[in-house]
């Protein structure tokens, strides 16, 4: 005799079986995503599906801003106008001085036969929202592959670097903020040109200069700018200010904390600085690899002595350029 229930009682597999199925699927996805990054295509499609909702989530703020703008008083507009005019005057002076300085710098660079510095192209973008995971230190901006954003481009606001584009979807991009512990920026102290690497400090919202020798000449209040030797960040963008230094005789390295110059966790508008691939010279490792290959083909017996000539910072910088 047949003991199967009639079809209208059918409920599919038991919940526990389903749980195992979906949990296994999730774990598999996690491992694939974390280790091999094979699922970027799927992620792009999902991000595209979520885009209308993300876009809609901005609407209340846009409406609020418009309403607030409508009701802003005459007096406030006048004062704001005055402030902006003063600022514009200040900036125009700066711009004139900058042009003169740039002309002078390019003249000097020509004299010492250095390559021309490239003009930077910047794409303005609006911050859509921050990642729901408060410790991911990521934000999403409303420009994507369609607007020619490339992964790896630095992102800055009016006062300095805030992060780097790490993923590009069709209409949105994901920016990893400087404060993310995995994010590193090669920096330079403005005062004396000392090079260092700034890592994100995580929840504290600060940056940390790792691998800075205990006797390195860093003071509180030192300005840090991008050094530009990694080929990812253009040189001279403000990054942070040193606020705290701990020197301990037991450790080889000093602990240097810095406060980001830009509003890393606030601000609505940012600039994506387009970095041109191929505009930079080959990395030392690449040159080295090429040399090694040539040496091998020649079957030279002498080992290349260039290893010793490598700068100690070089491996860290390549790390930072991820």
């Amino acid at each position, binding site marked *: 005799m047949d003991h199967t229930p009639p079809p209208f009682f059918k409920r599919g597999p038991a919940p526990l079986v389903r*749980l195992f199925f979906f949990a296994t699927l999730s774990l598999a*996805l996690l491992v*694939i995503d974390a280790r091999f990054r094979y699922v970027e295509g799927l*992620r792009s499609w*999902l991000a595209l599906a979520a885009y209308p909702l993300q876009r809609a989530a901005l609407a209340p703020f846009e409406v609020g801003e418009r309403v607030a703008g409508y009701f802003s008083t005459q007096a406030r507009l006048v004062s704001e106008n005055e402030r902006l005019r003063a600022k514009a005057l200040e900036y125009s002076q700066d711009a004139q001085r900058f042009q003169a300085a740039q002309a002078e710098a390019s003249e000097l660079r020509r004299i010492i036969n250095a390559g021309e510095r490239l003009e930077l192209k910047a794409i303005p973008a609006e911050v859509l929202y921050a990642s729901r995971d*408060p*410790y991911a230190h990521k934000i*999403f901006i409303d420009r994507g592959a369609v607007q020619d954003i490339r992964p790896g481009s630095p992102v800055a606001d009016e006062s300095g670097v805030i992060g780097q584009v790490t993923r590009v979807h069709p209409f949105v991009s994901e920016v990893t903020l400087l404060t993310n512990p995995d994010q590193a920026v090669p920096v330079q102290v403005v005062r004396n040109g000392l090079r260092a690497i700034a890592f994100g400090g995580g929840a504290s919202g600060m940056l940390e200069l790792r691998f800075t020798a205990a006797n390195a000449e860093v003071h509180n209040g030192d300005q840090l700018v991008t050094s530009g030797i990694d080929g990812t960040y253009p040189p001279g963008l403000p990054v942070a200010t040193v606020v705290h230094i701990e020197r301990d005789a037991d450790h080889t390295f000093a602990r240097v904390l810095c406060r980001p110059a830009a509003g890393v966790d606030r601000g609505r508008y940012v600039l994506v600085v387009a970095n041109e691939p191929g505009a930079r010279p080959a990395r030392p490792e690449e040159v080295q690899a090429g040399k090694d290959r040539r040496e091998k083909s020649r079957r030279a017996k002498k080992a290349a002595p260039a290893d010793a000539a490598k700068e100690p910072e070089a491996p860290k910088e390549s790390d930072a350029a991820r």
Partner: protein
Amino acid sequence: MQPASSSILMPVRLSTIVASFALALFLNFLPWRDLRLMPDFVALTLCFWCIRQPRLVGLGVGWMLGLLSDAGNGVLLGQHALAYSILAFLSVWLSRRILWFGAGLQALHVLIILLVAQGVALLVRVASGTAFPGWPIFVGPVFGALLWPLVTWLLLLPQRRAQREQAI
């Protein structure tokens, strides 16, 4: 004996469920000031439908919503998917039991479910190498559970209204 929260309702429309999930995702994407203190609206809505309509909404829906959340938030693909499928499982499993209680005791059950889901997401995050984010992360589920009576009232509204109109 009847479940405490049962009153005769119109059958739910699929459009209501879809709209509620869209609204929940929208609320999650709003730029909140402190995300740790915000309840996860998608988890709350998923919990509600799994308890109310375990035959319509279950693990598959939870898993898909989790994937959407993962992609939208730029976290590891599968983190929310795992948390939401466990949440859906617990909700479906406990749905018969939970519906016997009044709103307050229901909220307590939901608190446990939300905490487990948050814990799973946290575990995945810590396993992938992030530092422990601190205890405030468990405040969101508490707020979520406090919102439970409101969510119940709001999401049952379409079914009730239809009923009232018919009665008139």
